[in-house]
């Protein structure tokens, strides 16, 4: 590998390898902590191919990372201990930005900060959709199915990709969609090409080292408006969610909606939804709304104002409905406006979200990190209430601390994602207890039909197990594909519960 990338870019020392640990690991300093044996940092596709061929010939397990900043979901560390991390950060070129087609093609080392800077410096009229925090890789975030905060077509980062190039386990270079047509100019325009659409093979997978990815970008809108409507009865929740869905899916608003409960809201925590009579009493006593439907709008001022007017008309059917109109913000943002806004809504990367951990939270000591529990729940009022109750009750019963709980996150338009953030400490007893409790939560959610869409390595086997339809056929098919494309099992062994054949027997969750 040294001959492929140069000795400077092969890391084996203890000090270097410390920088590749999963800093928020729930297995910190334990024998089962997932740690790499070495790291290799190629500069270009040819070097990636050379490293992969060498690894394949020798059966060396590799674990590609893009920027390795996926804290909360595993960071820069591999799933399979002893793997050699393939650190792609040096491959940090923005290969192209196409203004007319509003698309781009980037290498894995391009962070959202890098891309934002590039767009600003080149005077681009395009916006980026960023996750929060924004220091991750566009490629890596999309491959782990991250999400953002701007307009609907761009919030699901894997869904906004168009065109993948990957080095397969045998070192061959593969391109999806129109990239398989030599000389095509449409690689970032049409994802599917001909025949089975294979870009999904790379999402949360272990089937190749992605070396380029295209994305669709959002033409900068003229203005932004954020509004909400408060309703005052527990019983409003189901028709409220249905109406929000109708409005979103018929393009009345294009930004990210939210469903919250002012009367139940406590900082970043959405308290447990009580029984209807109790909740209605709380509403009467406090004057706070039972539910709040928020929508954001991006577009020309006259258009978004008209859309908001229409939304208010539709909500008038709710007894006591009270609209709250935010300030219309003209774009691009002035420096003054930049200071005040929530940056992610404007495609501006930031690390400010980390400040939630700076003081500790509530009764907790400042933690050493966190993990996310992120389950897909039904996009209905009933689903939201049930998931809220079950999760809050079970976390309380099991003694799982939460510092963030949002049951109805809408990065994806057709479902809700329930996000819960759990503090992690560099303490073995605390982590062991936490792991057992989270495994229990995974089972409880599965019993309710709620599956995680993303999780840290410590839980990936358990989550894949929970998708158990037809005797775990999802995993069995994934294993067949794995055996076909990576028979020596050298890429990302164990990622999301898919192990190569030689490691499959006797693996634990």
């Amino acid at each position, binding site marked *: 590998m040294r001959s492929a990338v140069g000795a400077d870019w092969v890391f084996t020392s203890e000090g270097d390898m410390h920088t590749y640990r999963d800093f928020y690991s729930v297995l910190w300093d334990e024998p089962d902590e997932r740690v790499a044996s070495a790291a290799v940092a190629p500069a270009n596709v040819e070097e990636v191919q050379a490293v992969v061929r060498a690894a394949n010939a020798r059966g060396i397990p590799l674990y590609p990372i893009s920027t390795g900043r996926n804290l909360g979901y595993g960071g820069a560390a591999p799933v399979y201990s002893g793997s050699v991390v393939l650190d792609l950060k040096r491959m940090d070129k923005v290969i192209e930005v196409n203004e007319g087609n509003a698309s781009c093609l980037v290498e894995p080392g391009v962070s959202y900060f890098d891309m934002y800077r590039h767009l600003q*410096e080149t005077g681009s009229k395009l916006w980026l959709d960023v996750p929060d925090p924004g220091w991750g890789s566009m490629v890596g975030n999309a491959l782990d199915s991250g999400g953002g905060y701007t307009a609907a077509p761009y919030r699901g980062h894997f869904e906004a990709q168009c065109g993948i190039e990957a080095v397969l386990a045998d070192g061959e270079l593969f391109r999806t969609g129109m990239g398989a047509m030599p000389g095509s100019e449409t690689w970032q325009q049409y994802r599917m090409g001909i025949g089975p659409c294979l870009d999904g093979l790379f999402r949360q997978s272990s089937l190749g080292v992605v070396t380029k990815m295209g994305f669709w970008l959002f033409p900068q809108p003229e203005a932004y408006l954020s509004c909400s409507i408060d309703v005052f009865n527990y019983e409003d929740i189901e028709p409220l969610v249905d109406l929000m869905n109708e409005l979103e899916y018929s393009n009345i608003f294009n930004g990210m909606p939210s469903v919250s409960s002012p009367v139940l809201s406590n900082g970043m925590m959405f308290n447990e939804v009580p029984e209807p009579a109790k909740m209605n009493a709380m509403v009467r006593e406090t004057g706070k709304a039972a539910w709040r439907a928020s929508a954001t709008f991006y577009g020309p001022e006259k258009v978004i104002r008209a859309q908001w007017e229409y939304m208010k008309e539709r909500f008038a059917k709710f007894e006591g409905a009270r609209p709250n109109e935010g300030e219309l913000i003209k774009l691009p943002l002035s420096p003054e406006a930049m200071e005040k806004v929530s940056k992610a809504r404007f495609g501006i990367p930031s690390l400010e979200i980390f400040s939630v*951990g700076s*003081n500790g939270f509530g009764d907790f000591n400042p933690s050493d990190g966190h993990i996310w529990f992120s389950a897909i729940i039904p996009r209905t009022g009933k689903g939201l209430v049930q998931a809220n109750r079950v999760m809050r009750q079970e976390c309380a019963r099991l003694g799982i601390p939460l510092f963030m709980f949002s049951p109805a996150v809408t990065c994806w338009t057709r479902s809700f994602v329930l996000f819960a953030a759990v503090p992690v400490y560099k303490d073995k007893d605390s982590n062991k207890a936490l792991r057992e409790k989270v495994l229990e939560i995974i089972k409880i959610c599965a019993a309710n039909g709620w599956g995680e869409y993303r999780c840290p390595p410590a839980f990936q086997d358990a989550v894949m197990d929970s998708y158990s339809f037809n005797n775990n056929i999802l995993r069995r098919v994934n294993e067949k594909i794995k055996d076909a494309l990576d028979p020596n099992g050298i890429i990302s062994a164990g990622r999301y519960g898919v192990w190569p054949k030689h490691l499959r027997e006797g693996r634990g969750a």
Partner: protein
Amino acid sequence: MKAQVVVALGAAAVLAALSAQAAEGGRAAPEFAEGKAVYDEWCATCHADSLGLAGTLALQTKYQGAIPAALALRTDLEPEVVEYFVRNGVAWMAPFRKTEVSDAQLAAIGAYLSAPLDKRGLTAAELAKAKAAQ
């Protein structure tokens, strides 16, 4: 490995605003310019002088104002200490790898954060604040 130098020449107002928030003011002395540039790219997003930023808030919580919460206003940092935290991490701050911040860049950050205050390119207000804390 490219040196990441962000210069807000003729850039959009937004870039200037982002840089102004992240950067610590004016122009550093030439020997510390590289360190300031790397610091602005990799550190200032959490450590610039604003309590809305994670690192500064954490240090304010830790030191309760006994020393400046913003790293670039401190006069007690040694390059070895900077290197330790960058390569080992602390609390929520994970370590930074050599593919992100090379050893040479890390040395430059250490030199910048231990440079004489008036050579760091601080604004007049920042300089006054830093000197008052000495």
